[in-house]
């Protein structure tokens, strides 16, 4: 069976992501921006699939495309379009923008040219695609091989704090 992860798909998906990302900031209509952002997120999920990380791809679709973007749209829909059309789209901070873009670009180029010496030898990941989800589970929860349990629990505690904070801020009287 030939691998699905051909360069063609990579370039296609990255192209979609780039176009979507540019559309997000250039559209005046906030709903159009949101739809472009959804396209970007879906293409990103497909990139995760190409990296043989189906679980991350599924979570990406559920959380970002299906959850967060729905709430985004929910809020954006209630904004008056006529008024937002008249507002200034960009605040002209060219200097800061150019400096930031140049710094990021340098970083990307240096990573691209020196990647082999910068990174340690690639660890061989022994989980085939069909075992990926099970691999994540055993890394997290297994009694003997699980090493990330503590970090996982800390992250979930952070989320809990965020949830309680949201409730406290949204409710005037608890």
């Amino acid at each position, binding site marked *: 069976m030939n691998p699905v992860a051909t360069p063609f798909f990579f370039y296609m998906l990255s192209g979609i992501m780039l176009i979507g990302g540019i559309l997000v900031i250039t559209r005046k209509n906030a709903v159009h921006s949101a739809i472009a952002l959804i396209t970007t997120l879906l293409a990103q999920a497909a990139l995760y699939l190409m990296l043989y990380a189906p679980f991350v791809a599924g979570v990406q679709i*559920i959380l970002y495309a299906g959850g967060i973007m729905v709430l985004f749209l929910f809020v954006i829909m209630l904004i008056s379009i006529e008024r937002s059309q008249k507002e200034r789209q960009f605040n002209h901070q060219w200097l800061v923008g150019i400096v930031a873009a140049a710094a990021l670009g340098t970083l990307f180029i240096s990573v691209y040219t020196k990647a082999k010496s910068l990174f340690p030898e690639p660890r061989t990941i022994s989980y085939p695609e069909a075992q990926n989800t099970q691999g994540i*589970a055993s890394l997290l929860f297994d009694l003997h091989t699980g090493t990330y349990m503590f970090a996982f629990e800390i992250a979930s505690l952070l989320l809990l704090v965020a949830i309680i904070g949201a409730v406290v801020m949204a409710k005037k009287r608890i």
Partner: protein
Amino acid sequence: MHEFIQYIQSYLANKDQTPGAAGNVFWATVYVLLVFVGLSIAVICMNWLERKILAHMQVRLGPMRVGPHGLLQPIADALKLLLKEDIIPAEADALVFWIAPFIVVLAAFTVFVVVPFGPTHAITDMNIGILFMLGVSSLSVLGIVTAGWASNSHYPLIGALRSSAQMVSYEVAMGLAVVSVILLTSLHGAGLYGVGGVGTGDTGTLSMIGIVQAQQEQGVWFIFKFFPLGLIGFFIFAIAMVAETNRAPFDLPEAESELTAGFHTEYSGFRWSLFFLAEYSAMIAVSSIAVTLWLGGWLRPFPNALHGATWDQIFSFFPGLTFLALGAMCFFNVVRMPKNPLFKIQTIGLAGFGVVLALIGLILFIPGVRDRVGDIYWFTAKVAAFMYLYIWYRGTFPRYRFDQLMKVGWKVLLPTGLALLILTAATAFVAPPIEEWLKRVL
């Protein structure tokens, strides 16, 4: 050409995996087309059945004019919709208005990639099957929201707002019920309370086929596992899935008496029919999730009480018998047709339809065919039962108010789901010691 034929045959030679898993593009395409055609036929049947059953529940006749007993009504409707003028309101956002129905249809149809009609009868088996189904079907709310917004009109906007709030709320309860089932797939003990001893616990699975195989291995459908925990989980899902698909009694996004037609008020013709198609295929999709997770997927009923080769043989006759019964129903109605010469064509048509159904039934009795379609038949039969429930709900329950709907979602289903998840995990944890203790005492 010769290589192509070999390529086609290579999949048939060892037929113990899905075409997706075998990486065979040709058979995957064939399966996709089969599922697409089957789904379209199912939606057409549902259209007719819903009108007929609802009508009979309300002591009416339902469609009777187009074809015998209104059998051709769905086709007439489809023609009408295709010929209707396609209106895009002047103030609407044309591009988004145009895209929205396609998002909904895409989301509704894509999930069928992983629906397991049988151990080999699925387009593909994904490692993240159930996650994929929930994720992609949650994308349909994006289509509904954008449709409501793009119409630039009051009723659709309110419908879209209601719909997004409702679907996001019920997704939470739905997810909790699903997680409790995924927990059960990691157990290995047979029977109602079987856990499989300490240390034998393995990682569970998210694959749709794997979930059904786990039920087969444990010898119990997950609806009965840890009775009554499995049953409670099933009920949470069964309520949440009605809300997810915006059907009565949770059909607030398209409540006719308040919002005209909700989010698709401004749509007409072909685009409207796309929403219709998506709604029904989404219903079938969530029903097949419920069937796969709790009702043993393609497994036949009573595998424990009525086991053995004889019973397998008897149960394999069911597909053919069903179609023969449908054919017999047609002939019964042929006899009851009015003898007026004006009804002659209708009578002949109905008799022809009965003959076709009976012939399909006879084909399904051929041993080779019989063995192949058994799993598909049981899966479809279980899904069909859910479809009937949908119609039954619509004929029975009055519509909820929006605050009641939110109350049920957040204050009843969500805490129940959380408690269920904790209880299921606790049962899996404490069952082995209790079992040991019982063995020592008795």
